[in-house]
């Protein structure tokens, strides 16, 4: 998809599918992720139409039966998390940025990197193939609680369930390989002079996210093997009639599942940090403190998992511990958010599109974060668990992360990736056309959740309290807002492809940014740096008093202070 033509010697296949270049692998992940986002968004459209207009014909799909509804929700959730948020935030940005920002020519292990994408692609194919098998794709929720997910006669999608499980497992393998590579590259291959605290925050956060992923995914991989055997070899790991325990899966799942939300949160936070620093022309307020809070989040994320299981049949005494740790984890995140806001103080804020997205991320994520407190305090979660309040909570975190921050990152690094600028006006229209409808989709869902709407239900017709007309109006509002939001995405897609050819030429450093990736031509050539850089300072030297320009790139020696011009 990328337009820049290098030497034409490698064939199309070698260049686009067999490349070991980190930038090409990043593009592969990015475009796969975006394609999956369209699929996941399409599913959201279909089931929201069903909720807005129950049992009506959905244009572009048909009638949504209960079974299909479940499959749509399950696939929406799994795709958005595993095949959109992960590949775009971690793999695409990680691959593109790590070697460029730490100042080396490629990943430490380029072929492992290529293998990672190939396994990921395989997982996509396995997942999509489940749409073709008898019974259709898996419909037992993205959490796949057994015995429902383990027994074909319970879920009625035996083949789909197994394919889903295999796809998730393959995806994990892909990200384990990728994450290990990121970690090693960042630890070992930094430019000379780049000390621990000279690493840009986005790199820190992607690497820490990879490490959290690595440490939390293991038990679930083990669990996946057990579930696979339960499905296909009639073992009874999760079958209580044969000595197994269905709760075990829930624990293994959430031991991974909760850290996973921070695995996607951190890269988004990192992207936002870069953007804010550049467009506010400010050093990040308390760079080290941000890092300490990140470590704290990383560690604490391993001790809160059972807050998803307060009423799942765990011993009630355990809930107290997990409730306390859950509120505890809000402390470092609060601090991190406050530090970002404080960065704005004393700055000179340019509201270009990337900055709009970054600020939008903070504003929206805070709403998602504080609603987590309602859920984390065990007493109220009794009522709110598995209602639309939870749905609204995590869409207020996930959409800012996987959509808003990703758009921020894309608009920010687009010039670097493709050598051209995106159209600013279209960008702003797209921003407002996404963020406003986003709130109109999910604020009503907070209310329906508070009024008792449970999740994963294709129609509320049988529930007298839930079929009050007032609630149906809210659901309808949400659905219509989704239609608006989706239509505005067309502007982005147009802008994206149109600008590939017609955008203004970007030059090496259009945003006057201080990190290393902006010192090379856009798009960066194979091998990235003509001369391998040496690093002299931290990544956020903006607003310097007395310089000719208000910033100093990381690779400019102290004596040359003042006479650099990208």
């Amino acid at each position, binding site marked *: 998809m990328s337009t820049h033509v290098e030497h034409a010697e490698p064939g199309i296949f070698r260049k686009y599918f067999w490349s070991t270049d980190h930038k090409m692998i990043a593009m592969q992940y990015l475009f796969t992720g975006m394609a999956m986002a369209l699929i996941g968004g399409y599913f959201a459209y279909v089931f929201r139409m069903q909720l807005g207009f129950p049992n009506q014909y959905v244009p572009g799909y048909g009638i949504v039966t209960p079974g299909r509804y479940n499959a749509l929700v399950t696939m929406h959730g799994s795709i958005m998390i595993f095949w959109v948020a992960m590949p775009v935030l971690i793999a695409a940005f990680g691959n593109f940025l790590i070697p460029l920002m730490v100042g080396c020519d490629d990943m430490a292990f380029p072929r492992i990197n290529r293998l990672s994408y190939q396994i990921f692609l395989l997982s996509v194919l396995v997942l999509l193939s489940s749409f073709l098998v008898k019974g259709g794709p898996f419909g037992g929720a993205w959490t796949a609680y057994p015995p429902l997910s383990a027994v074909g006669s319970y879920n009625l999608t035996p083949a789909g369930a197994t394919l889903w499980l295999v796809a998730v497992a393959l995806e994990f393998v892909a990200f384990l390989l990728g994450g290990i590579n990121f970690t090693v590259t960042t630890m070992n291959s930094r430019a000379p002079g780049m000390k621990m605290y000279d690493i840009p925050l986005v790199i820190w956060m992607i690497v820490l996210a990879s490490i959290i992923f690595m*440490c939390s995914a293991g038990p679930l991989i083990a669990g996946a093997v057990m579930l696979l055997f339960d499905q296909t070899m009639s073992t009874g790991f999760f079958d209580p*009639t044969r000595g197994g325990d269905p709760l*075990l899966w829930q*624990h293994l799942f959430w031991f991974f599942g909760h850290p996973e939300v921070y695995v996607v949160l951190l890269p988004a936070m990192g992207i936002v940090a870069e953007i804010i620093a550049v467009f506010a022309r400010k050093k990040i307020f308390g760079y080290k403190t941000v890092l300490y809070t990140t470590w704290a989040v990383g560690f604490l994320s391993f001790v809160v998992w*059972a807050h998803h299981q307060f009423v799942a*049949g765990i*011993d009630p005494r355990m809930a107290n511990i997990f409730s306390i740790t859950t509120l505890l984890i809000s402390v470092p995140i609060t601090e991190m958010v406050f530090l970002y806001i404080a960065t704005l103080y004393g700055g000179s804020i340019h509201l270009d599109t990337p900055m709009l997205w970054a600020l939008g991320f903070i504003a929206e994520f805070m709403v998602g974060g504080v609603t987590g407190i309602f859920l984390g305090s065990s007493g109220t979660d009794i009522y709110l668990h598995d209602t639309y309040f939870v749905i609204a909570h995590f869409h207020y975190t996930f959409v800012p992360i996987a959509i808003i921050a990703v758009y921020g990152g894309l608009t920010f690094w687009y010039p670097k990736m493709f050598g051209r600028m995106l159209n600013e006006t279209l960008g702003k229209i797209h921003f407002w056309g996404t963020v406003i409808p986003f709130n109109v989709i999910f604020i009503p869902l907070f209310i329906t959740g508070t009024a008792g709407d449970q999740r994963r239900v294709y129609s509320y017709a049988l529930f007298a309290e839930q079929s009050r007309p007032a609630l149906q109006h809210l659901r309808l509002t949400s659905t219509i807002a989704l239609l608006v939001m989706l239509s505005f995405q067309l502007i982005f897609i147009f802008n994206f492809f149109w600008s590939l050819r017609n955008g203004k030429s970007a030059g090496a450093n259009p945003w006057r940014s201080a990190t290393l990736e902006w010192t090379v031509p856009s798009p960066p050539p194979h091998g990235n740096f003509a001369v391998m850089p040496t690093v002299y300072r931290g990544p956020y030297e903006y607003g310097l008093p007395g310089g000719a320009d208000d910033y100093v790139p990381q690779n400019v020696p102290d004596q040359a202070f003042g006479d650099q011009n990208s």
Partner: protein
Amino acid sequence: MTTETHVDHTNYVKIWAILVALLIVSVLGSMSHVREIVLIAAFGVALVKAYLVAKNFMHINVEKRWVPYLLIVCLLFIAILFAGVAPDVLKHNGLHWSKNPADVLVPSAAGATKNE
């Protein structure tokens, strides 16, 4: 490569001999009928063996400090997992819940296959 510390040939064979001796100990110990001896023979010896392999074959003691710490943190996470899950999975009853053989109160489960 851990060139810094040159460990000589005989050393490795000696460690191997100790490991094999420990293996024999654990097999013999397992024949005992005293539960404690079996457990120590089984797990105490396993810990010692694992330590010997990690130290002498993997040279974890001369590796950079944070490497063993990293591995220990991974083990710690597993310990946390265990501590969080055991109250539900390891036990058969707790506060206001108990595991029941499925066929006791739910007649339709009586037909389900039961092993052991």
